[in-house]
C-alpha cells in the first residue's frame, strides 16, 4: 500500500475538495514542466526531485491538462501475470506543450502523474503513474501524450544474458538491470531477501544458461537453454510466477515484486461508509491445477518440442470436484494449466550403486546448483561453501525442497555442498559480457525414509544418472492455487472514494457487505480477506473514485480441501531433444574427450585453461575464452572442462591423495600439484573421441591382446563407472574399486582396488580350448603381505564358469610395480574367458594396469637323465628334465618322453646327443624322430675327432602334425654292446615349438 502523507489524507477526508491531476514532464533530472487539471494555476514553492531526492526550486503548474485517462492496473489472480499500465494525458493545445514537443525529443522522457489539490505541497501529492512517453497525437485544439509504464525498458528487449545459481528475485533484478532499467526505479525492499515476507522461499534457486551465447541448445538440455524468444520483462514475470508472485510497476514508477500470501495482514477494512458501488462478479473455481515444468520455448518443424517438458504435476481437490459434479456425473473439473518455463533445472543422481526403493538415503547430486538450497555468493577460495551461503538460503524444515527423481518425489530438509569441488562457469550480462561464477559441483542431500514417495508418487529405485528436477516452486504454486480457488473464490468489484487511492494491486483488504451471495456465503464479513487484483482511478466529468476488483484470498476458517496428485511419467514428456540429450548424457556415441585446445598452464597459483573444445559424448562444447582460476596451495587439483555448461571445474584433494570422482560431463584436462606458491601440471587431456562398443568384446579375434581395454584408458561412461568392458565381480564400483589416476604404470589410468577380496573382471571374450595363452599384468600391492591375483575365468560356450586359473598369485609386491606374465592353457571345453583382478584377503590396496592376454605357442625344451641304451636296438631317450614346457604338452614320464601335439599345425623339433656323453658309439648308430612310433626323420651325425665318437643331431624343419600326434626321440644303436647315455642339462636336449 502506498504511504500517503497526513496532509493528503486530511485534504481528501474533507467533505469536499478540489482534486487535480498534476502532470510533470521530465526531460532531464531537474527542471520538469508541470501542468495540472482543473481551473487554477498551482504554484509550488519547491518541488521534490524524484531522481536525486533533493528539493528543487519551485514551479508553476498551469491548468493545461484537459483530461487524464483512467489508470488501470490489473493482475491475473491465477497466473499472476500483470498488465502493463499506460496513460494518456490530453493537453489543451495552448502552445506550451506544442512548443515543448517541438523543442525537445520527448520520446522516452518521463511522464509523472500524481493526485492532490492546489492546497497541497507537491511532495504531498499521491503518486498515480510514472512512465515513459511513447508517442503524441496532435488533434484540433488538443495534444494527447501517451506513456507506458517502465516495463518498456525490458519489454521490447529479448534477453541475451544468463543467470546462475541465483534466487529468482536476484535473477529478476539482474535481468532488469541488464536490460537497461535504472536501479533507481527498482524497489529495493522488494528484492531484499532478508525481508520477512520472503520467509519460506529464501532457499529458492534458479539458473539459466542461454544458448545464444554458449552454443547450440540442441544438445544441451542441462542448460535449459532454448533461445529466449521472450522479452526480458516476460522472463521476469515467469520467474516471479514461480514464487506465486508478480513483477509490476507501481504508481510511483518503481518496479515492484508482490507475492501472494494469504496470511498477510489486510491493509484496510472497508465498511459501507467507504464503498459506493458493489458488484458481485463470477466466482473463480479451480479445483485442478496442472503445472508444467518445462524449458520449452519453441517447436521444431516436425512439431516436436525444442526441449522437453520435464514434468507435470497435477493437483486436484477431489472434494471440490465431487461437489461441482453435474447431475449424473461424478466429477466437475475446473482445470487451469500453468507453464513454468524456466525452472526445469535438472541435476542428476551421482550415487555409486543403486538407491533402494525404500528407506532413508543420502542423495548425492551432481551439478546441483540449480536446485533449491544451493545458492552461494562470492568466490570459492578456501571454502567452506557454508560460509558463502546465508542461513536462510539453506534447506531446513521450514524451507524444504521437493525433488523429483525419476518418478518419485522426495522432500529434503538438509543438504551439504561438497568442498573443494568447484565449477567456475561464465555468467553473462545483457550485452554478452561474461563474469566468473563459482558453483558447487557435488552435493549430498539427506532424505529421510518418511520423506520418500511424496505427493502421490511412489518410492522407487534410482541409479546413477537419474534426473533430479526441483519441483519445490511448482508444488508451492499448485498448493496455493488449489487452496485458494478450489471451493470457488468470491470475486467482487467495489468503488471507493479517492482517499483509498493508496491501496495497490496485490494488497489484501477486508470489507463488510450484506449483498454478496453464493454457496455457503450470505454477505461478506471481515473474516474474509480479498486480494486487490485490479485498481482503476478515475477523475473526470462523470466519475471520481477508485474502482477495485477483489478476489478471495483466504479466511480465518477456510473450507477443507482434499488434495490428490498425479504426475506425468517422465517418458511422456520426452521429445526428440530429450532423446538426443539422453544419448549425450549416456555417451552413446563417443566418450568424453578434448577436441582441441583446453591446455592448462599456471602462473603461481593461477591456473589457466586455454580456449578450445571439449566433448561430452557427441556434444561438442566450446570454451570461448581462456579462463583462470586460483587454486589453493599445497593440494592436488584436478582440472576438468564441463562440457555441459562450458565451465572449468576444479576438484581438490590432499597432496598425494586419490583422485576424486568426476562428474559425468567432465572432460579431464590436467592434474595440478600446487605447492606453497607455484604449481606443476600433468597434462591429462585425451584427444579424439573413443567410440566404445564398435566391436563386441566377444568378437575379438585372437592374435592381439584379447583382454579388452587392457590398459584402462577407455572410460566412456566416466569414472563413475568401471572402465569399458569391465565389471565388478565382488564389491561396488566407486567404493571397492576405483579409477586409479595418481600413479598408473602406463597411460593415464589404472585400477585401484582398495578393499580386501574385491574383484572386477572383463566381459567374456572368445578363446579356444587347449590353446596356450600368455596372461599377465603390471601390479602393485601396498602391503607386503597382500596377495595380488590376476587370473582367468574360463567358460563354456553357454557361459557356464568352468574354472579359474591365476597367472599371478603373489605377495610381496609392495616395493614397486612388478610385471608378471604366465602361460595358461584353456581347458579342453573352454569357449570363453575373462580376466579377473582380485585383491587378496589381506589389508592394503592393489594397483593393476597393463593387463595382457595374448595367445602363446606351445613349446618345450627338455634334457635327459642317465640311462642305458640297448645294443643293436631302438631306445626311447629319456628326456625328462624340462627347461620349459609352455602349455605342458611334454610328458617326461620314463617310457613316455613325448610331446603330444595340442593342435593341428606346423611344428619344428630339434634334438641333440653328444658323443662324449655316450659309451659305445658306433658309426651306424643314429637318432630318429618318431611320430606316432614311426620314423619320419632320421638324424645326422658328426665325427668328433675322438676315436669312435660321434655327435647325433635332429633338425626337423617344419613338420605337419595333427592334434594328438606323438613326437619322440629314438636312439638306434648299431653297437653290439649296451651303451650308457649320461644325463646332461647342457649338452643333450630335445626341443620343439609350434610355429603355425
Amino acid at each position: 500500500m502506498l504511504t500517503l502523507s497526513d496532509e493528503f489524507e486530511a485534504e481528501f477526508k474533507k467533505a469536499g475538495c478540489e482534486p487535480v491531476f498534476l502532470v510533470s514532464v521530465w526531460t532531464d533530472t531537474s527542471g520538469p514542466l508541470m501542468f495540472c487539471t482543473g481551473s487554477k494555476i498551482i504554484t509550488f514553492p519547491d518541488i521534490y526531485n524524484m531522481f536525486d531526492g533533493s528539493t528543487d526550486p519551485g514551479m508553476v503548474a498551469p491548468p493545461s491538462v484537459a483530461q487524464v485517462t483512467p489508470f488501470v492496473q490489473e493482475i491475473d489472480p491465477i497466473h499472476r501475470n500483470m498488465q502493463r499500465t499506460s496513460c494518456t494525458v490530453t493537453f489543451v493545445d495552448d502552445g506550451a506543450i506544442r512548443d515543448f514537443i517541438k523543442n525537445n525529443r520527448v520520446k522516452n522522457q518521463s511522464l509523472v502523474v500524481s493526485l492532490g489539490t492546489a492546497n497541497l505541497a507537491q511532495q504531498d501529492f499521491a503518486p498515480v503513474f510514472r512512465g515513459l512517453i511513447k508517442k503524441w497525437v496532435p488533434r484540433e485544439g488538443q495534444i494527447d501524450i501517451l506513456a507506458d509504464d517502465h516495463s518498456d525498458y525490458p519489454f521490447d528487449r529479448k534477453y541475451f544474458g544468463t543467470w546462475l545459481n541465483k534466487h529468482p528475485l536476484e535473477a529478476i533484478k539482474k535481468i532488469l538491470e541488464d536490460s537497461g532499467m535504472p536501479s533507481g526505479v527498482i524497489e529495493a525492499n522488494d528484492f531484499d531477501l532478508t525481508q520477512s515476507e520472503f520467509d519460506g522461499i529464501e532457499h529458492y534457486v534458479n539458473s539459466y544458461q542461454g544458448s545464444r551465447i554458449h552454443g547450440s541448445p540442441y544438445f544441451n538440455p542441462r542448460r535449459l537453454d532454448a533461445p529466449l524468444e521472450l522479452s526480458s520483462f516476460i522472463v521476469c514475470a515467469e520467474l516471479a510466477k514461480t514464487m506465486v508472485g508478480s513483477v509490476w510497476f507501481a504508481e510511483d514508477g518503481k518496479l515492484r515484486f508482490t507475492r501472494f500470501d494469504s496470511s498477510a495482514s489486510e491493509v484496510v477494512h472497508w465498511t459501507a461508509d467507504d464503498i459506493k458501488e458493489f458488484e458481485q462478479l463470477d466466482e473463480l473455481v479451480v479445483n485442478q491445477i496442472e503445472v508444467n515444468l518445462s524449458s520449452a520455448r519453441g517447436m521444431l518443424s516436425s512439431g516436436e518440442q525444442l526441449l522437453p517438458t520435464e514434468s507435470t504435476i497435477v493437483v486436484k481437490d477431489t472434494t471440490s470436484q465431487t461437489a461441482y459434479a453435474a447431475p449424473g456425473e461424478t466429477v466437475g473439473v475446473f482445470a487451469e494449466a500453468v507453464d513454468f518455463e524456466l525452472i526445469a533445472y535438472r541435476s542428476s543422481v551421482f550415487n555409486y550403486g543403486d538407491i533402494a526403493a525404500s528407506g532413508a538415503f543420502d542423495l548425492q547430486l551432481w551439478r546441483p546448483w540449480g536446485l533449491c538450497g544451493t545458492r552461494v555468493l562470492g568466490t570459492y577460495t578456501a571454502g567452506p561453501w557454508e560460509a558463502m551461503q546465508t542461513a536462510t538460503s539453506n534447506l531446513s524444515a521450514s524451507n524444504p525442497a521437493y525433488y523429483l527423481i525419476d518418478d518419485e518425489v522426495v522432500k529434503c530438509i538438509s543438504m551439504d555442498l561438497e568442498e573443494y569441488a568447484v565449477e567456475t562457469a561464465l555468467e553473462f550480462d545483457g550485452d554478452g559480457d561474461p563474469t566468473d561464477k563459482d558453483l558447487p559441483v557435488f552435493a549430498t542431500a539427506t532424505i529421510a525414509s518418511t520423506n520418500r514417495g511424496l505427493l502421490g508418487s511412489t518410492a522407487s529405485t534410482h541409479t546413477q544418472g537419474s534426473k533430479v528436477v526441483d519441483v519445490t516452486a511448482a508444488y508451492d504454486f499448485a498448493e496455493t492455487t488449489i487452496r485458494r480457488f478450489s471451493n470457488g473464490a468470491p470475486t467482487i468489484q467495489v468503488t471507493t472514494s479517492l482517499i483509498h487511492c493508496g491501496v495497490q494491486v496485490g494488497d489484501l483488504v477486508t470489507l463488510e457487505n450484506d449483498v454478496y451471495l453464493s454457496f455457503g456465503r450470505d454477505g461478506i464479513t471481515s473474516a474474509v480477506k480479498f486480494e486487490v487484483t485490479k485498481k482503476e482511478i478515475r477523475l473526470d466529468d462523470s466519475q471520481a473514485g477508485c474502482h477495485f476488483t477483489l478476489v478471495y484470498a483466504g479466511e480465518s476458517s477456510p473450507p477443507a480441501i482434499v488434495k490428490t496428485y498425479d504426475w506425468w511419467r517422465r517418458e511422456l514428456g520426452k521429445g526428440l531433444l530429450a532423446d538426443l540429450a539422453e544419448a549425450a548424457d549416456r555417451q552413446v556415441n563417443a566418450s568424453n574427450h578434448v577436441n582441441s585446445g583446453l591446455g592448462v598452464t599456471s602462473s603461481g597459483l593461477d591456473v589457466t585453461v586455454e580456449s578450445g573444445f571439449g566433448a561430452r559424448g557427441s556434444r561438442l562444447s566450446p570454451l570461448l575464452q581462456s579462463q583462470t582460476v586460483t587454486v589453493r596451495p599445497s593440494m592436488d587439483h584436478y582440472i576438468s572442462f564441463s562440457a555441459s555448461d562450458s565451465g572449468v571445474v576444479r576438484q581438490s584433494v590432499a597432496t598425494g591423495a586419490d583422485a576424486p570422482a568426476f562428474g559425468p560431463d567432465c572432460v579431464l584436462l590436467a592434474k595440478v600439484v600446487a605447492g606453497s606458491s607455484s604449481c606443476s601440471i600433468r597434462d591429462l587431456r585425451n584427444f579424439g573421441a573413443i567410440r566404445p562398443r564398435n566391436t563386441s568384446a566377444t568378437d575379438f579375434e585372437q592374435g592381439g591382446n584379447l583382454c579388452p581395454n587392457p590398459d584402462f584408458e577407455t572410460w566412456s561412461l566416466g569414472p563413475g563407472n568401471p572402465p569399458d568392458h569391465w565389471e565388478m565381480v565382488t564389491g561396488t564400483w566407486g567404493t571397492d574399486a576405483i579409477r586409479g589416476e595418481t600413479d598408473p604404470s602406463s597411460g593415464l589410468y589404472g585400477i585401484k582396488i582398495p578393499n580386501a577380496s574385491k574383484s572386477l573382471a572383463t566381459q567374456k571374450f572368445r578363446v579356444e580350448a587347449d590353446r596356450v595363452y600368455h596372461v599377465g599384468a603390471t601390479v602393485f600391492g601396498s602391503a607386503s603381505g597382500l596377495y595380488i591375483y590376476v587370473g582367468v575365468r574360463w567358460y563354456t560356450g553357454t557361459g557356464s564358469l568352468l574354472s579359474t586359473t591365476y597367472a599371478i598369485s603373489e605377495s610381496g609386491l609392495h616395493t614397486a610395480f612388478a610385471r608378471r606374465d604366465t602361460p595358461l592353457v584353456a581347458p579342453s571345453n573352454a569357449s570363453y574367458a575373462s580376466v579377473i583382478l582380485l585383491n587378496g584377503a589381506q589389508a592394503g590396496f592393489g594397483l593393476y594396469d597393463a593387463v595382457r592376454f595374448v595367445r602363446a605357442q606351445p613349446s618345450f625344451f627338455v634334457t635327459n637323465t642317465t640311462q642305458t641304451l640297448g645294443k643293436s636296438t631302438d631306445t626311447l631317450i629319456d628326456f625328462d628334465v624340462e627347461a620349459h614346457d609352455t602349455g605342458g604338452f611334454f610328458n617326461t614320464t620314463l617310457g613316455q618322453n613325448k610331446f603330444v601335439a595340442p593342435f593341428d599345425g606346423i611344428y619344428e623339433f630339434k634334438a641333440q646327443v653328444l658323443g662324449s656323453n655316450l659309451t659305445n658309439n658306433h658309426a651306424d648308430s643314429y637318432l630318429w624322430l618318431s611320430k606316432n612310433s614311426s620314423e619320419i626323420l632320421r638324424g645326422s651325425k658328426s665325427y668328433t675327432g675322438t676315436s669312435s665318437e660321434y655327435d647325433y643331431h635332429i633338425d626337423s624343419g617344419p613338420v605337419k602334425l595333427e592334434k594328438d600326434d606323438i613326437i619322440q626321440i629314438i636312439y638306434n644303436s648299431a653297437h653290439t654292446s649296451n651303451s650308457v647315455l649320461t644325463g646332461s642339462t647342457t649338452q643333450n636336449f630335445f626341443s620343439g615349438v609350434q610355429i603355425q
Partner: protein
Amino acid sequence: MSSGAISTAELDYATNNKPMLVGSNALESASVEKWLIVDTLSGSADKTLTNHPISRARDRFNHLQTKPDTTSASTWYLSFDLTADVADFDCLFIGGHNFGTVGGLTVSLEIGTDATFGSVTELYTTTPGSSNKRIFTADLADTSGTSVPLRHSGERYVRLKMTKGSDFTPAIGELWLGRRRQLPYKFNIAAQEKRTRSEVVRFESRSGVSTTYTLSQGKAMRSGSIEMDDATCIADVTEWWKECGYGTKPFLWIENPTASPSDVHVMTCAPELFFDLTGPSSRSLDLSMSEVAPYLTSES
C-alpha cells in the same frame, strides 16, 4: 504611425460602464519580440527563459507565462516589433502576471519611433503594488501630453517596461493591446456579474456519506441579448466577430470598464453569431459566453 481620438460616444458608453468586447491583439503581428534589459530591440540578446517564450503573452491564455531568464536586472523590457501591418489598439490588458508577488513595480506601456527605442512615448503607467489582479486600461493616452484616451494606428515599436529598485524577474501570462468594441448596452438580463458555475462530481457511499470532488469552480457565465441600432456599434460587433476568428478564439469581456476595469474575463462563446435584424435598422446580439480558466474568481 498615428494616434487618433476615440469617438465621444464610445467614451461615454465606457464611462457609463457599458461592456466592451476586445477581439484583436496587436501583438499578434509581432515579427520580433524580446525580453530585454536594454533599450535597443534589434541586435540585442533576447533574455527569454527557455520554455517560456514570449508567444505565451499573446496566445489568449492567461495560464501560461512568459518570463526572462535569471539575468539580474532592475528594469525589464518586453519589446516588440509589430511590423507595418500592426492593428489599431486603444486598450491594454495584462493577465497572469506576478507583479504583485514581486511587489514595488512600476509598469509602463511605451511606444518607440524605431527599434532602438531611443525616443519613446509612455502611453500608460501603473503601480500594481502587491496585487496580482488583472490590469486593464482603456485610456492609452500620451501620459506626458493629453489625457484623452487615444486609438493608436501603425505603432510598430511597442514595449512594456517594468522597473523596480532592485533586481527581479517578471512573468506575464497575457499582454493584450486591443481594439475595443464598445457595446451600447448591457445584456437584457440584468445583474449577471455574479453568475458563475462550478463542475463537481459527488461520491456518495452506500451509507450515505457524501464527498464532493470539485473539478473547477467559479467559472463566469454570461448570456443574453443586446439590441442596438447604432450603425457604428453594429459595425463594431461585426468587426469584433472577425477579430475573434468568428468565435473561434477567446476574447476579452470588460463588463464594467469604469467601475471595475480589472475585472476582465477571458471568454469563449459558441462559434455562431446571432445578430439578427429586429427592426428596420436595429439588430439584436444574442451572446452566450463562458470563461476560460484560470477564472477571475480565483484571483485576488
